[in-house]
């Protein structure tokens, strides 16, 4: 028994699934962002896993992950700025508060 690609993919998928669950069920916007990080990490991990197991002689996946981390940081920053902004405006970071526009 040795560790192969599937071993690593399973936690990644679990992170993805948990992230999706959290993203759609958490009321708090920041909690949603937390869930989002799980999904992003799952994707990053996938890149790395595939890089290592399938294409070990190149490092495209790893580089991609690196950039993805930077992008994730940027996303988070902007999102948090907006959340803070909303908090200032309506005094809440509850996602259900923001459903005035519909239909």
């Amino acid at each position: 028994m040795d560790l192969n690609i599937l071993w690593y993919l399973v936690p990644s998928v679990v992170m993805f699934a948990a992230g999706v669950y959290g993203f759609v069920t958490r009321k708090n916007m920041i909690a949603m962002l937390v869930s989002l990080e799980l999904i992003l990490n799952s994707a990053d991990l996938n890149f790395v896993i595939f890089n290592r197991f399938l294409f070990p002689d190149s490092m495209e996946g790893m580089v991609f992950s690196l950039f993805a981390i930077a992008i994730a940081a940027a996303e988070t920053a902007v999102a948090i700025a907006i959340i803070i902004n909303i908090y200032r405006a309506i005094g809440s970071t509850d996602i259900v508060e923001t459903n005035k526009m519909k239909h």
Partner: protein
Amino acid sequence: MVGNIILYFVVALAIVIFSIMAVTTKKILRAATYLLFVLIGVAIFYFQLGYEFLGAIQVAVYAGGIMVLFVFAILLTHKPNANAAPLGSHRKIAGILASVIGGGLLLWALFTMPMLETSEGVRSLSDAIAGGPDISMKMIGRAFTGTEKYQYLLPFEAVSVLLLACIIGGVTVARKR
């Protein structure tokens, strides 16, 4: 070898458990903390897979940078032990369905992926690490400053513009006037 396996199980278990806890806990600060554990777990995986630089970045940027951002945000917008309760059961069921179906399908897809038919696809971690060169900082440095194929100067510059834009955007949004 065995150490690797044991490490894998520990980390994988931690990732799974803390992922789930991060999205189910009622306290938002806790959720952030669990997320931190997951991120560290992932970083350990990176180390295990032989991407030390990436692991380090993961710890530095994520665990160091993003988590701090989260904590600040949480503290700015909540009392520390504010409630982060999920929604009513409808949404919960929908969420569970989404995650289970989505995760299940993805697992199915991954377990049936065609690469598993090839010898490369099923090689072990040690073979895989042995199959590729050691990723040295020099290689990474060259890759980030080169303009040839498999070199990433352009994305590197581009992402700087992105970050600058996000700074401007974030500032514009967040500042009062």
